[in-house]
């Protein structure tokens, strides 16, 4: 926008607001939106910054600093952490599989491909993707009951949408030459996909899936709050009973899990990009 702006040549004429400047309007809009948000929300800020609330916050933080480290509890915590990891792994593998199955009809693999199912499968993928894991979990609880299975399915459904879209883009952007070579030799569409397209995009599919797995570990830790198993369920349970020492241990375990996963994936990516 700065290039089109005549006032830039003359620093003296630089008013704060001009009618023909889209950035000014956008800025004004953002400021208005922010003011309206605070105004309509009824945040009860005076209660938030009262002595009483500060005291409660202080007591809460104090309690959080004394985690429960009994061996029995740590064992339970370990099991819940493993459950969280397992949920994310199973959910991601399921999603990678279903995502690939849906990505094939959702992509137009060559210029003569009629791709009849493209619109419908894209619609399905978008629907799966736009509903967050947590909402899926709450919906699935009704048919699968409380526990890690519901959480796993929820992760799988949302991730199928995300991966399916990424996979279909990889299929469409794959180099055409190998597929074309097989096709002119009379290979069937499934043979072309298995022997030409898939081998060229496998590394990309793997890296997308790994990236989503990293995301899903965070998500899996949270899903339990609505009853989807793992660390989150434990957290919701102990916090509901105001058992602050246990809550504190669970929070620390969550932070450790997330930091661990971040470090591992950061190192792995650094090693791979070398």
């Amino acid at each position, binding site marked *: *926008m700065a290039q089109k702006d005549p006032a830039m040549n003359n620093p003296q004429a630089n008013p704060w607001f001009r009618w023909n400047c*889209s*950035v000014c309007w*956008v800025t004004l809009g953002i400021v208005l*939106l*922010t003011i*309206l*948000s*605070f105004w*309509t*929300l*009824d*945040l*009860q*800020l005076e*209660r*938030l910054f009262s002595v009483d*609330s500060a005291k409660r*916050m202080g007591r*809460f933080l104090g309690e959080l600093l004394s985690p429960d480290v009994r061996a029995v509890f740590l064992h339970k915590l370990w099991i819940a952490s*493993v*459950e969280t*990891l*397992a*949920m994310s*792994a*199973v959910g991601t*593998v399921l999603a990678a599989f279903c995502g690939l199955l849906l990505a094939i009809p959702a992509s137009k693999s060559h210029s003569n491909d009629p791709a009849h199912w493209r619109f419908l499968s894209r619609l399905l993928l978008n*629907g799966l993707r*736009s*509903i*967050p894991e*947590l*909402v899926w979990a*709450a*919906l699935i609880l*009704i*048919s*699968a*009951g409380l*526990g*890690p*299975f519901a*959480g*796993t399915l929820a992760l799988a459904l949302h991730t199928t949408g995300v991966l399916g879209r990424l996979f279909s883009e990889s299929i469409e952007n794959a180099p055409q030459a190998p597929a074309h070579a097989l096709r002119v030799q009379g290979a069937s569409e499934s043979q072309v996909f298995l022997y030409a397209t898939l081998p060229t995009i496998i590394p990309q599919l793997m890296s997308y899936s790994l990236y989503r797995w990293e995301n899903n570990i*965070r998500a899996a*830790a*949270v899903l339990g*709050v609505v009853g989807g*198993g793992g660390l*989150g369920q434990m*957290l*919701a349970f102990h*916090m509901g009973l105001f058992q602050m020492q246990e809550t504190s241990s669970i*929070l620390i375990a*969550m*932070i450790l899990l*997330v*930091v661990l996963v*971040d470090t591992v994936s950061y190192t792995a990516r650094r090693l791979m990009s070398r």
Partner: protein
Amino acid sequence: MVPALVATEFKPWILLESENLKVSSRFLADFFPPNTQPDFLLLVAKEAWRTIAIATAGTFLALLLAIPLTLISTRVLSISSLSGRVHHLPFVVRQLVRWILIIIRSVPELIWALVFVRVVGLGPAAGVLAIGLTYAGMLGKVYTEILESGDHHVSTNLMRNGSSRLQAFFYGVLPQNLTELTSYTVYRWECAIRASAVLGFVGAGGLGQQLDNSMRMFNGGEVATILIVFMLLVGLADLLSAWLRKILQ
């Protein structure tokens, strides 16, 4: 893979048990038609606005927290590093702020909301604080990275010639990075809308809370309406943020 399947109690057949099948099919059948009574739609519209407002206020709070934290933690504005190595005290302070940023962003916003609901009570304040804190961590980290990846010649020159760190920031660092910083903030606002729609599940107000209520009453029609509004809201935020980022380029 097998131990993982055991750990997740992976038993797909329970979905097909007649009892479960009956409950879920009745719930799904209830989805059509979605509830379109005017007073319910009005309620959903109000909750949708609250979702947007929580996201906006949360992002604003995150910005307020992230700016000073970024200014402290970025190495670009270090005066002592102009003459060789960074001094001990500034180094320790920077590392401390970086660790604080890591910790506040590694707790997911939903968990922060759960914690804040305990401290400030049910309602939007918990959601705003949760988003503000988590996103301050993310914004702070990314802002620092953006500033450090830029060209440092101007700011170093300014500081060598005796300008203060804030002057070097406003005249040397900010102008070249402003578009990148803004577009990342807009992207985070979009993420905040997604997040705030979900925060209601733990009692922090917005669409999620209404969804939770309708789900507890097995009211399929209401759930369907809220899900549709939810998808529209997320899609709209997506479009708006993409458009804003294009304008700001």
